[in-house]
Every structure is written in C-alpha cells, then in structure tokens.
C-alpha cells in the first residue's frame, strides 16, 4: 500500500480525472495504515507531548496554589483563562459551522475539508471544556454548576449565562463527537477492510497472518461497529449526518449566545452592546475557518494529498476567509461608529483605552492579524497559494485571540470603582496554561492523523462520481464486458445457504439487477445492496425509500428541550423561589438558551441511537461478510445480496435470473452462493 498518490487536478478542477473509488480509498487509507512519515510524526508528537506535560505541570501547580498564579487576584478576574476558553470554543464553533453548512448546502467538494473541520471542532471543544473547570477556585466542585440531586436542596441559577455555558459545552461536546463519528463511520469500515487486505497479503507472502495486522483490523472493526455499507445503512447515515449538522448549526448559535451574553448582558462599558454577540459569532467562524485552512494546508503538503485537496479547495477557503474578514471589519467599524455617535463617555473611554492603554498591543494585534491579512485574498494569486492560505489562517487565529484578550482585560482593568483599578499583566503561568492547552490539541490532532483518515473517503468518492459519473459507468461497463461471468464452485455448496450475492461495478448495474429480481417470490427473498457510497437508486426497489430518521430528531429535540425548559420553570418558579435583582419568578426568556442547547443534544442522541438501532448495528459478525470478495464493498464494488427467507427460497432460480440479465442492464461481474 505504498505510493498510493493521486495526480493533482489540473486548472480549476476539484478532483483529478484519474481519481477512482479504489484510488481515493488507497490514497487516504495508506496514511493511517502504513504511516509514511513515521519519524517526522514522532518528532512532532514528542513536541506535542512536551507541551502536554507542561499542561499537566501547570495544572498541578494551579490546583496546589490557586488561580492567583494567573495574576487574576485583582479586578481582572477574567483574563487569559476566559480569553483562551472563548478562543477555543470560537474556533470549535467556527469549524463545526463550516462543515455543517457545507453539508447542508450539499457542497460536493466538502470531502477535502469537512473531516479536518469536524476534528478541529471536536479537539478545540476538548481544550475549551477544560478552562471553565480549571478557572474555578475549587475545580473539584465543578459539578455544582449542573443540576444534580444534591443534599443542599439547591438548583443552579438557570437565569445566568454561566449556567448556559455549562449546558452549552456539554451539549456541544456530544454533538461534535456525534457528527465527527457519524462522518467517520463508513471510512472506519473502509480502513478495516484495507487492514484485512493487508493482513491477507501478508498471509500470502509469509504463510501466516501477522497478529498485529489482524489486531489492527479488529480495532478498526470495533470502532466501525460492523458497518457493511448496506443501502439501508447509507440511507439512514445520510439523513443522520445532515440532521445532526443542522442541530449543530443551531447549537453553535446558542453556544455563542451563552458565551457572549455573559459579557453583553452586563452593564460594563465595552461589553454592553448589541453588536457584541454578532461580533463574537463572526469572529468565531472566522477563526475556525482560519485554523481549519491552516491544518488542511499542512495535511495536504505533509501527506501529499493534493490529489484530493486541490488548489480550488484552498481558493474556496480563501474566499470564505475574505468574506468573513469583511464581516469582521464591518462589526468593528459598527462598534466604533455607534460608540462615537451615541455611546456614553465610559464607552468612548474604553475604546480609547483599547487603542492607547496598557493593553494596546492586543488592539494592534487585532488590526494587524485579524482585520488586514484576510484582505490579501482579493488577489487571485494569493488565494491559490497554499503558503498564503496557511499563514493568513494562522494570523487570523492569533488576531482572534488578541480580540478576546482586548475585550476582556481592557474593560475589567478599569471598572466603576476607582479603588479596584489595580494593574493587571499577563503572567508566565497564564501563557503556560494556554501553551499547555495547545499541547493537548496538538497531541490529539497528531493521534488523529496517525490513526484516522484525514480526508473523508466517502465524500471524496461521491465527488469523484459526481464529477465523472458517465466515465465511471462506461469504465464499469467495459470491465464487465472484458470479463466472463464468474460463478465458480468453491466447495461451499453443501454448507447451509444464507443467500446469493452478485457483484457489480456500478450502482446503475446494481439498481437494474435489483429491479429485475424484485417482485419475484418477495416473501422468500430479502434483497439488500452493499457499496462504498450511498445508493439512493436502489432504495425504491428495496422497498425502503420512505424511511426517515427525522421524526426521531424532532421528537428527541422537542422532548429534551421541553423537559429542560420544564425543569428550569419548576426549579425557578416553584421549587427554589429566589429573588435576585428583581427578576420575575417565571423569567422564561433566560431559559430558552440552555433549553435549546439541551434540545440539540437530545435530538443528536436520539438520531444517533436511531441510526444504530434501526440499522441493527453494532453487528460485528454478519453473514454478509461471508460474501466472497466482500472487502471490496468498501472499495469499488457493489454487491447485491438475496438473502433466503424460509425453505422455499430457490437459489438456482435467482442465479439463473441474474445470469440472464443483459450486459448493459445489470449483468453481474460474478454470482456467488453465500454460506450462512
């Protein structure tokens, strides 16, 4: 499995003309399976582990000493810790939003970007989720922020954005994991089968399979949950993927609302502003695209995946950054304009202090890194330059971090009480904590690159089929004509029969054959199709065209959201009546944000469970795996299986019927009897 690289497409193409299903699978799977850059990976991993070790050290010191080591024991109670949190969760939101929106819009080319974006979202959430916990005075009581059955008879304060944040992060982590894993599921099956092929090749070469390769295949097999690529699997998979993407988009808005209303809902000058939540969201997406673009370019150049991640992909990312850069610029301009037009003296002072005060470096970093660089993408040449895309992506991330520092520190350093205006400066421990969390991110990212496919195999294959469908079909037909119909006897005739299988080179052939078989002894035959990409054309023949997973999503989300909202109302208006700041007992608007987040999480869990249970997964051992050559169902072959249902199943008739199909309308490449 070496040298499996694809030719980069010429000109403005998204994928090379020679990209076949098989070639794409090999090109992507060879990275985790053979790992071509072992030494460089280990060097990078050692560096990341060193940073992670630093993180551990800092956390130990933090637990022993307290949050004062960050220099926060003054009025600036939120500094690098919350800036880091906001930044990580911003990057996470941005990258998830990009992946989800592209999926919902049906962008065929997203395969090159979506896996990286989803992974960045997941790993950033892991890094972000630690901050709210470690910035507590007593981190071991973090669960006090959650509604749990406690002996104090207390409820958390559901009206507070601090609580929204806790619910948002937990929900976001669940949705991220789910979206990431569902996207990964068919690719994991692909990796499993490539690993088995490697083990079989070794057996051929050495006479016995290497235990290690077999274990590797089994490890991928377990995480792939027994994915067989059946048409029914694919149908629900596509629905689940899109549904969770939609839930994720809604959750991003809710999450960023929680993070920004915590500031905007206060009366602090510089925070108390209606544009702030919008700025937060725009900059979040902006930084998410920046980090995603940088990592995409890195993976592309390191693993030579320019056959799949084309210059056109980079150009699209660059255009996205340009758009968001303009939106970000607009938000800043609006803030200046409205503050100077009708803001009060305090707000104007904050703006002046941002530009000229002790933390002016943060403002000028924002200008130099966040606002200006993306404007370079007006130039078409820079849009197509991988170096420029990566560099500007990193700059945007730096600028977004500086923005969070500026917004938090400048306002807090001078609040309304002159007596609490103590100078704040970043401490080495605050910086070390952030560096450590970067170490956590990098360690996980490197593990991801080492063991999982960095580019979506499935989406790339769909793109290849969409770009050159006619050519693929023609090639398939040619292949079918060139080979005589194979129906070898392999000594399994006496074994109890599970069914009959037929292999095809294209979905079109498979659909034609399925149509020919259906309608005859329906009660005794259970038809199913297996292939490397979704097969919408056979669903009607299989009689499952109307199946939908969306009801589970809607019911799950509604039930979860209503339950959470009900809990807020019960707790705040009845069980734990507690007047703070004259808020009414039934202050429903503040319950909407956490309820929405919780609804998205329960919808996601419902969809995820429905996907597995309706598909009867996980199922590691299944008779379909007995189909000869079934490994290629995750590669470049389509299999039609006719499973025997009862005694009256006539295998010979099915075989005769399949064999009599004309070459141009569904003649199989081979027909096999499959033992149980």
């Amino acid at each position, binding site marked *: 499995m070496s040298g499996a690289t694809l030719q980069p497409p010429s000109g403005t193409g998204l994928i090379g003309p020679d990209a076949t299903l098989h070639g794409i699978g090999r090109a992507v799977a060879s990275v985790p399976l053979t790992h071509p850059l072992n030494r460089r990976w280990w060097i990078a991993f050692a560096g990341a582990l060193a940073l992670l070790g630093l993180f551990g050290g800092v956390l130990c010191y933090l637990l022993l000493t307290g949050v004062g080591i960050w220099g926060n024991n003054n009025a600036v109670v939120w500094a690098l810790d919350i800036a880091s949190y906001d930044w990580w969760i911003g990057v996470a939101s941005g990258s998830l939003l990009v992946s989800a929106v592209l999926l919902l819009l049906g962008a065929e080319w997203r395969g090159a970007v979506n896996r990286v974006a989803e992974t960045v979202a997941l790993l950033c959430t892991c890094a972000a989720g630690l901050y709210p916990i470690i910035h507590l005075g007593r981190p071991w009581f973090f669960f006090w922020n959650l509604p749990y059955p406690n*002996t*104090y*008879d*207390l409820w958390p304060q559901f009206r507070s954005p601090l609580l929204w944040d806790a619910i948002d992060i937990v929900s976001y982590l669940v949705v991220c994991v789910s979206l990431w894993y569902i996207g990964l599921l068919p690719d994991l099956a692909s990796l499993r089968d490539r690993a088995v092929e490697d083990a079989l090749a070794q057996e051929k070469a050495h006479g016995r399979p290497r235990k290690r390769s077999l274990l590797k295949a089994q490890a991928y097999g377990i995480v792939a949950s027994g994915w067989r690529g059946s048409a029914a699997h694919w149908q629900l998979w596509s629905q689940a993927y899109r549904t969770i993407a939609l839930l994720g988009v809604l959750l991003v808005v809710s999450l960023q609302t929680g993070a920004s209303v915590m500031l905007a809902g206060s009366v602090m000058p510089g925070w108390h502003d209606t544009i702030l939540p919008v700025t937060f969201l725009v900059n979040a997406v902006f930084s998410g695209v920046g980090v995603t673009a940088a990592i995409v370019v890195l993976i592309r150049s390191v693993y030579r995946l320019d056959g799949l991640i084309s210059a056109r992909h980079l150009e699209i990312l660059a255009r996205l950054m340009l758009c968001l850069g303009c939106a970000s610029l607009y938000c800043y301009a609006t803030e200046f304009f409205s503050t100077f037009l009708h803001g009060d003296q305090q707000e104007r002072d904050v703006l002046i202090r941002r530009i000229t005060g002790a933390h002016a470096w943060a403002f000028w970093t924002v200008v130099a890194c966040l606002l200006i660089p993306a404007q370079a993408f007006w130039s078409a040449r820079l849009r197509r330059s991988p170096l420029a895309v990566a560099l500007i992506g990193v700059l945007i991330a730096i600028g977004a971090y500086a923005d969070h520092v500026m917004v938090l520190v400048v306002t807090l350093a001078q609040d309304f009480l002159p007596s609490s205006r103590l100078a704040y400066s970043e401490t080495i421990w605050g910086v070390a904590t952030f560096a450590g969390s970067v170490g956590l991110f990098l360690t996980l990212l490197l593990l991801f690159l080492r063991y999982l496919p960095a580019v979506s195999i499935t989406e790339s294959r769909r793109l290849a089929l969409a770009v050159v469908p006619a050519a693929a079909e023609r090639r398939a037909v040619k292949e079918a004509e060139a080979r005589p119909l194979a129906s070898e006897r392999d000594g399994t005739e006496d074994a109890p029969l599970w069914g009959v299988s037929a292999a095809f080179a294209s979905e079109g052939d498979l659909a034609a054959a399925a149509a020919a078989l259906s309608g005859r002894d329906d009660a005794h035959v259970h038809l199913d199709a297996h292939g490397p990409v979704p097969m919408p054309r056979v669903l009607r023949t299989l009689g499952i065209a109307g199946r939908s997973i969306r009801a589970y999503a809607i019911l799950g989300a509604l039930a979860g959201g209503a339950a959470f909202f009900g809990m807020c109302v019960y707790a705040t208006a009845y069980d734990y*009546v507690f*007047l703070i700041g004259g808020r009414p007992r039934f202050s429903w608007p503040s319950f909407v944000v956490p309820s929405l987040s919780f609804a998205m999480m329960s919808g996601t869990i419902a969809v995820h469970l429905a996907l597995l249970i309706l598909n009867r997964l*996980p*199922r*590691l*051992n299944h008779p379909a795996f007995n189909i000869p050559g079934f490994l290629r169902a995750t590669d470049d072959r389509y299999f039609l299986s006719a499973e025997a249902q009862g005694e009256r199943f006539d295998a010979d008739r099915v075989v005769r019927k399949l064999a009599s199909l004309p070459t141009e309308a569904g003649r199989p490449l081979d027909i096999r009897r499959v033992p149980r």
Partner: protein
Amino acid sequence: MAQLFSPGADAIYRLALLTGVACLAGIPIVAAGIVRSDYVTDVGVAPAQPVPFSHKHHSGELGVDCRYCHTTVETQATAGIPPTHTCMTCHSQIWTGSDMLKPVRDSFARDEPLQWVRLNKLPSYVYYNHSVHVTKGIGCSTCHGDVTSMQMTYRANAFEMQFCLDCHRDPAKYVRPQEQVWNMTWKPPENQATLGPELVAKNHIRGGERLTECAICHR
C-alpha cells in the same frame, strides 16, 4: 472473506456498550444514594463516649428537664454542654462509688472537662441560634429526635441544607405551641394544618421568602 469477528463477539460488544451506558446513568445515582446513606451521615450511629451517659435513663425515666443540663438553650445560640459540676450535683450523693462514673469524678477532681464526642455539627459558615428556634415554637425533637428514648445518644438527622430548608420554606408544618416544645414525643396534631399557620402568625415567623434568604444562615 472470513469473518473478522466470531459470532460471540457481538454479544460481548453490545454487553460492553450497555454496561458503559448503565455506568454512566448508574454512577450518579449510586453516588447520590451513598452521600445520603447513614454510612456517610452517621445518622443512628452512637459513638463511644468517655462515660456511657444515657439520655433515656436521665431524661426519659427520671424526668430530668432538658434545660437542667442544656441551660442556655432558651437564651443563647448554643444550647450548652453541661460542666462536670452539673453531673456532680447528683452524683456527689448517689452512685458515688460506681466504676462507671469514675471518669466523671476524675474530671471533677482534676478540674478538667469531660471530652464528649460531638454528634451534631454544623459547618463553620452556618449561623445557627437555638434560642430563636425554641422560643418560636420549634421543639427539640424536630431536629434531635426522641432523645428520651436513646440509651446511647446518636444523631437523629443529618443536618444537611435540605433538612434546614424543608422547615424554613414551610415552618407551619413543624411549629408547636410553646408548652409542647420540650415534648420529646410530639407528633403534629390532627389540626396542624390550621394550627400551624396560626402559630406562625402569632410568633411572627416569616417563612418562605424571608427564611430562605441566604444571609439568614450564611452571615
């Protein structure tokens, strides 16, 4: 292709998944149960004391009033632990040679207090006042249980916040007429539903919003 997994692998895999889910749901439930259990709260556990003093004998059978020993319960924040002198008012006259009472006599002779093992502890951030409770009609047994039936004294209730809040939210359920405060076997009478609110009004108890303010207890 040969199967990568044996048929039994599915059962093991699904069992492992279900176990994981069950643990996820079960661990908080078990933990919530453990922190409420007598094992953690020590409710009903009578520790060894320097002298095996019996509330049942002294207060229940002999009829010594609570206030004979816990003298400041009506006037101060603490009810007061009696000094050895209080014991010796009787035991200098009766059971003067008893082995069981030797620690009491030693304490008296050496002028050192007896080191009782404390049962009812509140965290230092909780402000509690006995006098306001007993003078407003909350009886001893509401918190300390029927002490007159305890041979060796044990903790009758875990003084967790939910225990306090239960009454602070609705004192009418527990408030008694003044003469019933020292009754260790008091049960809410049939007419508590009407009597309670009357007593609450009479004693100027502002339950609900006032008594559930944080600063009532956490000053």
